[in-house]
C-alpha cells in the first residue's frame, strides 16, 4: 500500500442500482471492513473527491447527474464501477430505461464484478483504482496529458458499439 501518497477521498453515487451494492459500499466504511484505515473517507462533495464510485447502471434521467459529478471532480480522478449493473447493465440490460453500464457516459478505470459486489471486491477495486490514480498523478507532474485522454477515446468507441447493439 506504500503508493498511497495521501488519503484518497471517495464519492459515491447510486446510478440505478438495487441498493445491494450501495449498502456494500457503506459496509466497507463500517468496523468490519473499515477502509478508513487506508485514509479513505466517503465524502459528499465531488470537489473533494479523488475516486468516484458508481453503483448501478445509467438511465436517461441520471445520465446528466453522473456526468456533472464527474466533471466537478478535480484532476486526477478515477472512476470505479461497482457491481455488474455499473459494469454492463447486468440483469437489467434489456430494460427499456437502461442505457447500459457507466462506461456509456463517462470513462471507467476499474470494473468491480459481483451481484452484489462483495466488500472485499470493492476494496480490491478501489486499491486497483488507486494505482491508476497514482499513475495519472505522476503523469500530471511530468506534464503528460495523454493518459487522461486515452481512456476517454476507448470509452467513446465502446459507446458506439453498445449503441449499435441496442
Amino acid at each position, binding site marked *: 500500500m506504500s503508493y498511497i501518497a495521501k488519503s484518497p477521498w471517495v464519492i459515491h453515487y447510486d446510478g440505478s442500482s438495487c441498493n445491494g*451494492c450501495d449498502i456494500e459500499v*457503506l459496509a466497507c466504511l463500517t468496523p468490519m471492513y473499515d477502509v478508513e484505515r487506508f485514509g479513505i473517507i466517503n465524502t459528499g462533495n465531488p470537489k473533494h473527491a479523488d475516486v468516484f464510485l458508481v453503483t448501478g447502471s445509467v438511465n436517461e*434521467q441520471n445520465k446528466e447527474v453522473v456526468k456533472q*459529478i464527474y466533471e466537478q471532480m478535480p484532476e486526477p480522478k478515477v472512476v470505479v464501477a461497482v457491481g455488474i449493473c455499473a459494469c454492463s447493465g447486468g440483469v437489467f440490460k434489456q*430494460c*427499456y*430505461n437502461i442505457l447500459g453500464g457507466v462506461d456509456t457516459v463517462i470513462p471507467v478505470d476499474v470494473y468491480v464484478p459481483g451481484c452484489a459486489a462483495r466488500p472485499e471486491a470493492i476494496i480490491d477495486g478501489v486499491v486497483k483504482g488507486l494505482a491508476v490514480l497514482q499513475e495519472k498523478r505522476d503523469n500530471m507532474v511530468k506534464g503528460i496529458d495523454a493518459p487522461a485522454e486515452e481512456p476517454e477515446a476507448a470509452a467513446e468507441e465502446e459507446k458506439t458499439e453498445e449503441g449499435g447493439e441496442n
Partner: protein
Amino acid sequence: MAKRTVIPFGPQHPVLPEPVHLDLVVEDETVVEAIPSIGFIHRGLEKLVEKRDYSQMVYVIERICGICSFGHGWGAAAAVEGAMGVKIPERAEYLRTILHELSRLHSHLLWLGLLADAFGFESLFNHCWRVRETVLDILEKTTGGRVIFSICKVGGLNKDIDNETLKEIVETLEGIKEEIKELTDVFIEDDSVKNRMVGVGVLSKEDAEELCAVGPVARGSGVVQDMRLTNNHGVYGELDFEPVIETAGDCYARCKVRIGEVFQSIELIAKAVAKIPEGPVSVPVKGNVEGEYMLRLEQPRGEAFYYAKGANSKFLQRMRVRTPTNMNIPALVKTLQGCDLADVPILILTIDPCISCTER
C-alpha cells in the same frame, strides 16, 4: 410574511445512499412545502416479463431492492406458484419465513445505523453496522450471498438448511441480543437522541389511515396493520405473535416500532426453528402459467403487493409489484410540511425510504 425560498435536496446528498430529489419550499428555516420528484432509478423491470420466463423473473424481481431482496423473491415466486396452483412443502414455507425474518433483522439494524448517521451520531452508526455483520454472516452461510440471496425459486427453495445450522442460528442470535439491547437503549433513553426525535414529524392516526401509510410508519401512528397477521404467506399463523404498535406517531415512535420488531424477529426465528418439520424443500414445477394471483406480503418497510398473470405461456403477461415506500411518500410529504429544515434528513429516514423499490 417571510420570503419563500426553494432549496433543492438531492439527488446526490451526503445522508442519502440513494438518489431522491425534493424541492423544499422554505420560509426562514421552516419547510412549508415539499415536492418530491422521482425517477432517478427507474429501470422498467416489470416490462422484462416479455423477455424472461417466470422462473427467471424471480431473479429479476429479487433485484428490485438489495435490502429486502428475500421478500421480493418470495413475493414473485409465491405469486407465480399461486397462479399455477402449486403447493410448496411445509419445510420450505418455514425456511422462507425464517429467512424473511433474518432479512427484516438486517434491514432494521441497517436502518438504525443510518438514522444514527442522519443526526450525526457516527459511533452509534458504526456499532449498529458491526452487529448487522453477524446477521449477514448467517445469511451468507445459509444462502451464499450477503445481500442478494438467489435462494427462492418457483416451487420452493434452491437449497435446504439443515436443522443443526438452524439451531446454530438461534444460538448466535441469542448471543447478539444483549449487544443489540445495549445499542437500542441508546436510541430509546439517550437525551441527545430523544431531543432530535420526540415530537418531530407527527403523523396522526387519521392521517396515516387517510394517506394509506403502511408498515412501521402506520404502526408508529397506532394503526394496527401487519400483513403477517393475514396469514396468506409463510407460517406466521402458527407462530403466535402480536404486532408492535406505538401511538405517538412521531419519529421516536417509528424508531421504537422498528426496535421492537428487531427483538420480535429474533423471537419468531426461534419459534419457527422449534417447530420446523422434516421433508423436502422444493417441488418440481413445469409447464405454463395460466390464471392470475395476488399476494400481499409484509416487507421490513411495510406491505408489498405482488400480482402475476399468465396467459398459457412460459412468459407472464403481467407482473406487478407495489412497494411499501411508494405508499409512504404521501405521508412523508405531509410530515415535512411545517418541520425545521434541519429535521428533513431525519424525517426522510424515518419512513425508511427504499428508492429502488419505489421506482423499480
